[in-house]
């Protein structure tokens, strides 16, 4: 806890977002398929396929997660949210069988984040969704740990490409632990170095000079 360099506000992970986290803002910009359960007068221009003045009740459209969350009400029917495929029963069965074969980046890239956020919408399937998210994380933990620690000295780039955002962040914290240890082993840990920012700005300057 003694680094003075830039550390962004971390994402909330799970059902709560962190207000100031850029990651959470990007996650909550993911679009969800919804169906309006009432009409939205004077906002027809938001729905590109129609040229009516209002968004009528029963319109199927996509809204970002943050807006769906903001409009959704348990008691009053304002809109209903469709569960993205990857959280439905068919895919849940696949995940439960072997979470390691799934390309979570392609299915996500916010598999855990968006899945947790979906629990805000009162679906009867919520307990199963939450359970699958948890079991998927646990099931993939060993592979992710071993590769982030380079346990097998293999090329990990293919594996990293298949990680979801959350796993990627964990992977890089594992890698930085490994790098710190390896640079210590090589006797480099006590070398005083220029700050990465200074180095980056210098690199940029050099690039600027090149035609």
């Amino acid at each position, binding site marked *: 806890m003694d680094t*003075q*360099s*830039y*550390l*962004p*506000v971390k994402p909330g992970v799970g059902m709560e977002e962190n*207000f*100031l*986290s*850029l990651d959470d*803002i*990007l996650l909550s*910009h993911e679009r969800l398929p919804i169906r309006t359960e*009432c*009409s*939205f*007068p*004077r*906002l027809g221009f*938001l729905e590109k396929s129609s040229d009516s003045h209002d968004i009528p009740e029963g319109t199927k459209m996509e809204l*970002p997660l*943050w*807006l769906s969350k*903001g*409009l959704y009400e348990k008691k009053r029917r*304002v809109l209903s949210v469709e569960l993205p495929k990857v959280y439905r029963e068919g895919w849940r069965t696949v995940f439960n069988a072997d979470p390691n074969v799934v390309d979570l980046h392609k299915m996500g890239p916010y598999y855990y984040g968006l899945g947790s956020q979906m629990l805000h919408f009162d679906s009867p399937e919520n307990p199963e969704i939450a359970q699958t998210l948890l079991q998927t994380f646990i099931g993939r933990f060993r592979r992710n740990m071993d590769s982030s620690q380079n346990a097998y000295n293999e090329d990990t780039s293919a594996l990293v490409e298949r990680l979801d955002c959350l796993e990627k962040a964990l992977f890089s914290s594992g890698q930085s632990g490994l790098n710190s240890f390896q640079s210590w082993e090589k*006797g*480099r840990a*006590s*070398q*005083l*170095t*220029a*700050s*990465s*920012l*200074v*180095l*980056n*700005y*210098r690199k940029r*300057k050099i690039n600027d000079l090149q035609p």
Partner: protein
Amino acid sequence: MFCEKAMELIRELQRSNEGQLPAFNEDGLRQVLQEMESLYEQNQTDVNEAKSDGRSELIPSIKLRHCCLLRNQRCLTAYLYDRLLRIRALRWEYGSVLPANVRFHMCAEEVQWFSQYKKSLASFMRSLGGGEGLDITQDMKPPKSLYIQVRCLKDHGELEIDDGTVILLKKNSQHFLPRWKCEQLIRQGVLEHVMS
């Protein structure tokens, strides 16, 4: 859809890796504020109509615009706060005087925030240990030896060490200097620590 401008600001920061500070996007900020103003005005109109004419069917749209207002507020606050975190880190990386190309990317209020932050930090460090003072921007890594071998990466002029000796820091020259005198210069990329 609303709030797209605000998302652009967020993406712009997310693309700037390793804490680099992109130019302050005054134009983007203004556009978001304009969108907020117009959302607010539309809502004022609809709220008045809903009240006076009893048009409660307007409520869902009012709510939707209000969500967008809050979203814009969040994005702008997060944009500005994240920039502060980046700017704050600069104090440790560059010392108290920022290079011109970094300052150039800051807006006037950020420059003000930074100079107030520097002041707070300085008076904090001065008052440490019952007023004795300690520079905690030094000693970033465990010490290994009193003196270290360094190479100059650029011409930097003269450097006085504590016994009064003056050393000329000329590009490519090598020196054996007290570690604590070099730390900041190494971080700034003036000197390079040569390991034996």
